[in-house]
C-alpha cells in the first residue's frame, strides 16, 4: 500500500481524495496556487506546497512544479482528481518515468480512449453500437458535408480532444455546417490546444446514461450500475441520479456488459465511465469513455455503498477487486445537485466572490461534498462549483423529497448560486415522473423565461 499520495487538484475533489487517503491511513501532500492558500484542501492535507500563481496553467497544470513537489516530498503515487491533468497522457508518462504511480489507467490506454474518434472505432470493432458519423477527425469541410448528407441532419460537431461541452455545435441544415465546423475548431483549439473535430448524428430526445466501471490490474472488472446525466445545460451536467428512472434491469445489464467489454478491449485499469446515449426505444450508442473519477461519482457510491476513490487507490496499489459482479447490489436511489456560483437570472454567469455565510444542510440521507466555508472566496480562476449536494432515499420519491428540503436548508450568502434553480427542476412534473431527456433544461429555461 502507498505511504504518501500527492493530490494534484483543488476544491471539493482534492478534499474528496484527501478524505479517502486519511481513511486508508495514507499521508497526503496538497498542492495549491497562490489564490488557494486558505483553501480547505491545504488545511486538511498533511503537507501542502505552493506550486504557482493563480492561473491554472502556471500552477495546477504546471507539470514540472508538481513532479518536483512529488519527488521532494517522496510520494508513492499521484491522484489527479478530475479536470486539470487527469486525462493528460503526457503527465501519466512523466509520472511513470519518475517511478510515481499515477492513480488511473496507463498513458497508453488513456491516449486510446482520449482520442474520441479512435475510441469509437475500438468500440465498433467490439460490436458495441456507436453513433454514425465521420471516421475520425474531419480533414475538410467537404468531408463534413458528405458525411452529414449520408447520415442525415441534424448532426453535431465535437472536439476530438475535448469534453465538458466546449467545442460542440449542433447543426440542423447544410447551410450552417461550414461555419459550425470552423467555430468548433476555434473553440477546440482555445480550450484544448488541439483544433481537431469530428461529426456525428445528433440524436433527438436522447438520455445521457453512463456506466461506472472498475478494473483492477489483474484483469477483473465490474460495473456499478448507471448514472442518468441527461440534465445538462450547454452540455454541462447539473443534476445527476442513480439509478436512472428509465433504465430497466435488462437495459442495465446490456449497458453494463457493453461497458465492460469495451473497457476490457483496451486493457483498461482503475475507475472509468463509459458514456452512452439511449434513444426513445432503449437503443444505446457508445459516446465516449472518461478515464478518470467523475464529478457525479457520489450517486453511485450512495447506492452501492462502495467508496470509488478508495477503490481507485487500492487498485493502483495492486489490490484485487474484492467482489464479483453478482455481489454488487444497488440499494435505494441517489441524486446529486451541482451547486455553482452562477447567477441563473443572468444566464448562469459565473459569479466569483467571497461567501459571507455558509451553512450546509445535514440530517438523514444527505451528503455534502464541498470545500466551501464561511469566509471563503470562490475564485475567478477556477470552475464555479461551490459544492455537490447528494441525497439518498429508499425510493426516488424519498430522495427527491430529501433533496428539496436540503436545498431549502442550504445557506450560501454573499454570491448567487444555482440552489433555487435546482428546486425548479425538482418541482417539475416531468422530472417527478422521470420523463426527461437532454432537452429538459433548455425547455425548462424557456418555460421560466419572463414574458
Amino acid at each position: 500500500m502507498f505511504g504518501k499520495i500527492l493530490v494534484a487538484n483543488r476544491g471539493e475533489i482534492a478534499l474528496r481524495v484527501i478524505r479517502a487517503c486519511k481513511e486508508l491511513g495514507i499521508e497526503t501532500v496538497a498542492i495549491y496556487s497562490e489564490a488557494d492558500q486558505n483553501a480547505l484542501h491545504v488545511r486538511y492535507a498533511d503537507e501542502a506546497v505552493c506550486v504557482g500563481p493563480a492561473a491554472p496553467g502556471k500552477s495546477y497544470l504546471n507539470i514540472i512544479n508538481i513532479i518536483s513537489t512529488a519527488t521532494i516530498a517522496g510520494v508513492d503515487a499521484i491522484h489527479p482528481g478530475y479536470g486539470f491533468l487527469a486525462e493528460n497522457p503526457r503527465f501519466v508518462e512523466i509520472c511513470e518515468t519518475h517511478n510515481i504511480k499515477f492513480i488511473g489507467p496507463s498513458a497508453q490506454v488513456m491516449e486510446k480512449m482520449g482520442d474520441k474518434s479512435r475510441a469509437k472505432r475500438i468500440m465498433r470493432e467490439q460490436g458495441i453500437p456507436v453513433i454514425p458519423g465521420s471516421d475520425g477527425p474531419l480533414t475538410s469541410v467537404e468531408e463534413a458535408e458528405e458525411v452529414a448528407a449520408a447520415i442525415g441532419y441534424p448532426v453535431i460537431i465535437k472536439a476530438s480532444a475535448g469534453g465538458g461541452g466546449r467545442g460542440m455545435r449542433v447543426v440542423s441544415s447544410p447551410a450552417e455546417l461550414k461555419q459550425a465546423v470552423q467555430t468548433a475548431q476555434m473553440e477546440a483549439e482555445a480550450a484544448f490546444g488541439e483544433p481537431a473535430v469530428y461529426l456525428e448524428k445528433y440524436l433527438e430526445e436522447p438520455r445521457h446514461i453512463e456506466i461506472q466501471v472498475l478494473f483492477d490490474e489483474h484483469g477483473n472488472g465490474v460495473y456499478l450500475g448507471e448514472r442518468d446525466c441527461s440534465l445538462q445545460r450547454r452540455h454541462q451536467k447539473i443534476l445527476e441520479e442513480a439509478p436512472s428512472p428509465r433504465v430497466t434491469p435488462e437495459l442495465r445489464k446490456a449497458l453494463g456488459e457493453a461497458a465492460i467489454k469495451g473497457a476490457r478491449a483496451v486493457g483498461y485499469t482503475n475507475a472509468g465511465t463509459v458514456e452512452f446515449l439511449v434513444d426513445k426505444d432503449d437503443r444505446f450508442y457508445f459516446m465516449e469513455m472518461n478515464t478518470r473519477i467523475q464529478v457525479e461519482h457520489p450517486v453511485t457510491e450512495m447506492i452501492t455503498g462502495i467508496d470509488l476513490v478508495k477503490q481507485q487507490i487500492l487498485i493502483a496499489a495492486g489490490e484485487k477487486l474484492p467482489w464479483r459482479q453478482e455481489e454488487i447490489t444497488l440499494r435505494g436511489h441517489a441524486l446529486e445537485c451541482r451547486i455553482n456560483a452562477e447567477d441563473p437570472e443572468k444566464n448562469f454567469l459565473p459569479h466569483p466572490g467571497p461567501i459571507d455565510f455558509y451553512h450546509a444542510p445535514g440530517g438523514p440521507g444527505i451528503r455534502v461534498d464541498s470545500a466551501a466555508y464561511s469566509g471563503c472566496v470562490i475564485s475567478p480562476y477556477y470552475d464555479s462549483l461551490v459544492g455537490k449536494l447528494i441525497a439518498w432515499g429508499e425510493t426516488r420519491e424519498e430522495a427527491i423529497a430529501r433533496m428539496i428540503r436540503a436545498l431549502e436548508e442550504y445557506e450560501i450568502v454573499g454570491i448567487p448560486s444555482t440552489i433555487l434553480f435546482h428546486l425548479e427542476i425538482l418541482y417539475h412534473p416531468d422530472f417527478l415522473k422521470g420523463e426527461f431527456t437532454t432537452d429538459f433544461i433548455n425547455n425548462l429555461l424557456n418555460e421560466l423565461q419572463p414574458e
Partner: protein
Amino acid sequence: MNIKEIKELMQMLVETDITELNLESDGTKIVIKKGVPGVVQPVVTVTPTASPAPAATGNVAPPAPNPPQEKGGRTLASNQEYVCAEIVGTFYRAPGPGEAPFVQVGEMVEPGKTLCIIEAMKVMNEIESPLRGKVVEVLVDDAEPVEYGQPLFIIEKI
C-alpha cells in the same frame, strides 16, 4: 435633574454616535456606550416563516438571512410600558361576543383591572393590569392568537 437637562442629554445622543446612556442619580451610577449597535457577526437570524417555494417565474435568488424581529417592534417612551402575554392562547377584548370591551383606548386603569381574556385549553384567563395608567394602544385584534411574551397593550404610567 430637570426636563431641560434631560433634553440636553437626549440631544447629545441624537447628534453623536453615542448609543446608550444609563444613569442613576444619588448612588451615582452611569453607563455610556458608543458604537454601531448590532454590527456583530454573521448571525442567522430568524423569522417564523418557511423558506419560500420557488416561484414559477424564474425568480431565482439566494436565500438571505432576515433581520431580527424586535419585541413590540419599536421603542416606547420612558413612561410607557408593554403588557405582554404570559400564556399562549386566543386574545379576547370582551367577556363575551357582542359585549363591551374590558378597556378602551384612553381609559385609565388601576392595577388588577382586567384588560382582556386569553383563552387557553378552553380556560378563560383574565389578564390584569400590572400598573396604574392610561391605555394608549391595544396591539392585538380581537380573537387573534397570541404567543408567549407578545405585547398586548401599551399603558402610560401616570
